[in-house]
């Protein structure tokens, strides 16, 4: 399969990864487009011995991180305390489980480094080692970002009156 066809076959996964990283649909698709364009320009730097998917994820993630760095608005980490305690908790359907929107909103509140690790593990099923290679930080740092991020995510959901994730049946 030609290089470009291989990229096309991976677009659905790239879109999912991008959405996990930045949440917003339009921004995520811009990230994917940027990733594809960069990948084609830099195709000579791709080592065919490595999986194309891992390389594209790295290109996409680098684009995301440099975008975050340039866009001051998104470097401001929203404070968990900005949320009303129990906000929206009165809706009865929430008792049934966690809505997609609630979880995405909660992810938006996490620092980028924690969010990306949570997404890479849960959504893309990458190993700690793969994440370490992609982000350039040691595996121990990946682990601490992950456990801190998951704790923080759980805390946010609980503050929003959503006990689902903690409740033990």
């Amino acid at each position, binding site marked *: 399969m030609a290089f*470009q066809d291989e*990229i*096309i076959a991976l*677009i*659905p*996964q790239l*879109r*999912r990864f991008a*959405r*996990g990283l930045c949440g917003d649909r339009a921004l995520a*698709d811009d990230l*994917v*487009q940027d990733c*594809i*364009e960069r990948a*084609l*320009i*830099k*195709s*000579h*730097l791709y*080592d065919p011995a*490595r999986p194309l998917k891992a390389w594209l994820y*790295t290109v996409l993630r*680098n684009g995301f*991180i*440099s975008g975050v760095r340039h866009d001051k608005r998104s470097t401001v980490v929203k404070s968990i305390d900005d949320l009303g305690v129990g906000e929206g908790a009165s809706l009865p359907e929430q008792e049934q489980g*966690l809505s*997609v929107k609630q*979880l*995405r909103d909660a*992810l938006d509140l996490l620092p980028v480094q924690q969010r990306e690790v*949570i*997404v890479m*593990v*849960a*959504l893309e099923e990458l*190993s*700690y080692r793969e994440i*370490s*290679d*992609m982000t*350039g*930080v*040691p*595996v121990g740092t990946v*682990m*601490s970002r*992950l*456990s801190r991020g*998951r*704790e923080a*995510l*759980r805390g946010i959901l609980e503050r929003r009156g959503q006990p*689902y*994730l*903690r409740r*033990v049946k």
Partner: protein
Amino acid sequence: MNMKILQNWALHAYADGELDGAERNDMEQLIAASPEARQELAAIRRQKEAVKGSFSGVADEVVPAKLLAAARRPLSRRWGWAPNLAAALALLIIGGAGGWLASARVNSVAMASLPERAFSAYEVYAVEVRHPVEVPASEQDHLQAWLSKRVGAPFKVPDLADKGYTLLGGRLLADGAKPAGLLVYEDAAKKRLTIFVAGNAAGNEIPFEIERRGKLVTCFWRDKDLVYAFVGENSADDMKQLAQAAHDRFEG
């Protein structure tokens, strides 16, 4: 092991299938013995499923046309040699024969090939036992900001700890009439590795290439804004692997 440690990382590693052998057995015993650990594990797994579930539909959406178009755009030809040739022609045309010779003399240092410049920097500085660097690794943020500014484009000092190399620090070099940066790393056996970084005046991108000088091997490449050359006493394959790992991290 107390519950605090469990919560911090080991249970997560277990839930993510990252433990095996003895570690995994130990964790299974702890979980079997501790209702609290079982609750935590269940909570981690539920959250992981919930995160996955919130985005799982995205991969099934119809791919936007603009993304397909981006992937199908014809690959433009890359003129790896053209900027150099154009620069040489311009010198000839502007300077005439006399000017050409003068320019060639003035630029002789800068015109040494990238591997030669990188080998020379290694030979001068990597052998320094006490003063291999100007700015130590403890001031890495400063080093990165300073060298980025001087070479004219931002780059990230790559962390190569997982490849066995610790950053010692870096220094500014005179590369002909221009500034360049040198990063120095060392492995457990005190073997040094240097990375030479300079602005890419030609703007041409070229992929990894390998060259040797005696025991030294360099793996070098050119990106749009910067040129990079790794130098060390390693095999060509090892150098390429290190360069590959660092390449992805330079942009960070």
